[in-house]
């Protein structure tokens, strides 16, 4: 693999995600809603956690590298049903002011997933865990992490997947790919998809035609919650690097997979209950630590400490602002304008 001159990075603040799926739709509309075979693909998806995610149970399927080594692991291939077969809703029946069917009072998917194996993209939305009033969930937006050590690249025997030297974006050469799907088995985040019509695998392209022109990715610029920052690793002044390196408030998703993902997450405080922010952490630290960490060698206990440290940093800075003092961190997290979030 060629030396990577600089690396694209993203940071997502999970405290700001509304679960509105605007990023999902922005990505889908831009890149994967035209060609046959792409219907089931969501290069960007938002899933509720705790939940089974997209594709189903991706977190436990396998892939990545064992124990921070170069020993590549591979998972079974998810079925189409694990991703969720695409459906249409009966809008034409329910929403028509004339010509509709009055008895069809409910919007239902068609064909409707049924039976014990029923599943689809975002199937677990807002389900979460815990018992009211201490139930909890949060939204987890996911796209390709354009990993520093990409398992998909390592798995491809044809070098059809490559990591660009100029920005670290991982792409599938559509003319070299022969649809063997080793990449899907190797990617622990299951962010490479097989197009059975075009007989090749496809994935997030990090909106490279836009980022090359210093425009933000569609999922970033369309984000209603303004929770996504994008920038390059070689610019210490960019907000992605300030959040990751200077303030140290962003963590990697499942760093134990060993691929060094370049999407970072600010872990979520517990969501409000009865309209009030809780005094206690309803989302168990252990649960968050099982998901987020700095690197593949960190222990669960070390991750818990780090997440508590991050919450402490953010609460301290928020308190400063509440008392009328400035805070560079809160300024970044507020992200008033697009130029705060897109620094390419």
């Amino acid at each position, binding site marked *: 693999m060629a030396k990577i001159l600089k690396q694209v990075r993203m940071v997502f603040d999970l405290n700001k995600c509304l679960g509105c799926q605007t990023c999902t739709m922005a990505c889908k509309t831009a890149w994967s809603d035209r060609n046959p075979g792409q219907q089931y693909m969501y290069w960007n998806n938002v899933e509720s956690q705790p939940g089974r995610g997209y594709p189903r149970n991706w977190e436990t399927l396998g892939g990545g590298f064992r124990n921070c080594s*170069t020993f590549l*692991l*591979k998972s079974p*291939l998810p079925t189409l049903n694990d991703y969720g077969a695409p459906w249409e809703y009966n809008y034409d029946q329910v929403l028509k002011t004339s010509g509709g069917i009055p008895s069809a009072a409910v919007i239902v998917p068609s064909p409707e997933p049924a039976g014990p194996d029923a599943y689809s993209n975002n199937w677990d939305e807002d389900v979460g865990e815990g018992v009211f009033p201490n139930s909890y969930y949060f939204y987890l937006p996911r796209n390709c992490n354009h990993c520093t050590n990409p398992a998909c690249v390592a798995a491809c*025997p044809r070098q059809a997947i490559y990591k660009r030297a100029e920005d670290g974006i991982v792409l599938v050469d559509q003319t070299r790919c022969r649809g063997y799907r080793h990449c899907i088995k190797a990617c622990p985040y299951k962010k490479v998809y097989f197009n*059975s019509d075009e007989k090749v695998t496809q994935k997030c392209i990090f909106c490279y035609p836009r980022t090359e022109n210093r425009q933000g990715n569609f999922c970033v610029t369309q984000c209603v919650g303004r929770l996504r920052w994008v920038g390059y690793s070689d610019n210490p002044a960019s907000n992605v690097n300030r959040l990751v390196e200077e303030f140290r408030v962003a963590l990697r998703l499942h760093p134990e997979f060993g691929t060094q993902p370049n999407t970072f997450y600010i872990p979520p405080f517990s969501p409000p209950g009865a309209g009030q922010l809780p005094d206690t952490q309803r989302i168990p630290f252990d649960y968050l630590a099982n998901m987020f960490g700095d690197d593949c060698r960190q222990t669960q206990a070390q991750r818990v400490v780090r997440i508590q440290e991050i919450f402490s940093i953010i609460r301290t800075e928020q308190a400063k602002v509440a008392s009328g003092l400035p805070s560079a961190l809160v300024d970044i997290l507020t992200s008033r304008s697009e130029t705060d979030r897109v620094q390419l």
Partner: protein
Amino acid sequence: MRGERNMEKNTFSPVLKKVVLTLTTLLIFLPTASIAATVTITAVYVPGVISIDPLDPVWGQVPETVVSLDAAVIQVIGSPIMPGWRFLNVKAAHNSTDIFFNIKWNDSTADESIGDPTLFADAVALQVPYTFLMAPLEMGSQFQPVNIIFWRADLLQPQNIVAGGASTIQKSPDAASQNIVHSQNWHAGTWTVIISRPMLPASVNQVAFTRGVNYNIAFSNWEGGIEGERNGVKMITGNWQNLYIQ
């Protein structure tokens, strides 16, 4: 290291892991016979029309050669275990303008769909070197490239492929060389695939088939299905075989 990259999930000890890594780096050939057989397939001359219809009476006059797929290439450890040898029943014929290969083999299931991410289709391929030198069997080399005709049950048309070594195969980009016609039939546990192309090369991306000449030829077979064979997971002829164009 390529071998490391292709390791599957397993619980090998470090020492065993190292051994396996070394072996996979070399692309393991597991010959089930110490000396792989070499046979001669004669592409017989049949004046007039030959069709890709397996019921064409012409095929009754063409001698059949049994080709043993006696070597398994396992590029990915942990992939499905090969159930021993496979055999292709190969007939070849030409009418001085087009050459035909009629390939028949046993396969209990017709795997024709890749409509689910878990599905792989049955496939068969034949390869002929461009040069008369003894090219490496593993899809030639940079200086001894090979020409491959690749049929897979889900493809509309067999592909004309050029390769210069393992992992380098590429469907030839010129439309002229994608001129292979075929028929495919699966019945009662047997695939019959008939492939034909003009003997004259359509471009530099095809070998010329010339009367009176002997060629090296090799065959591969993939058994599809759920998480089925693809890529380096296949059965091959362990040696170059001989193709004589009458």
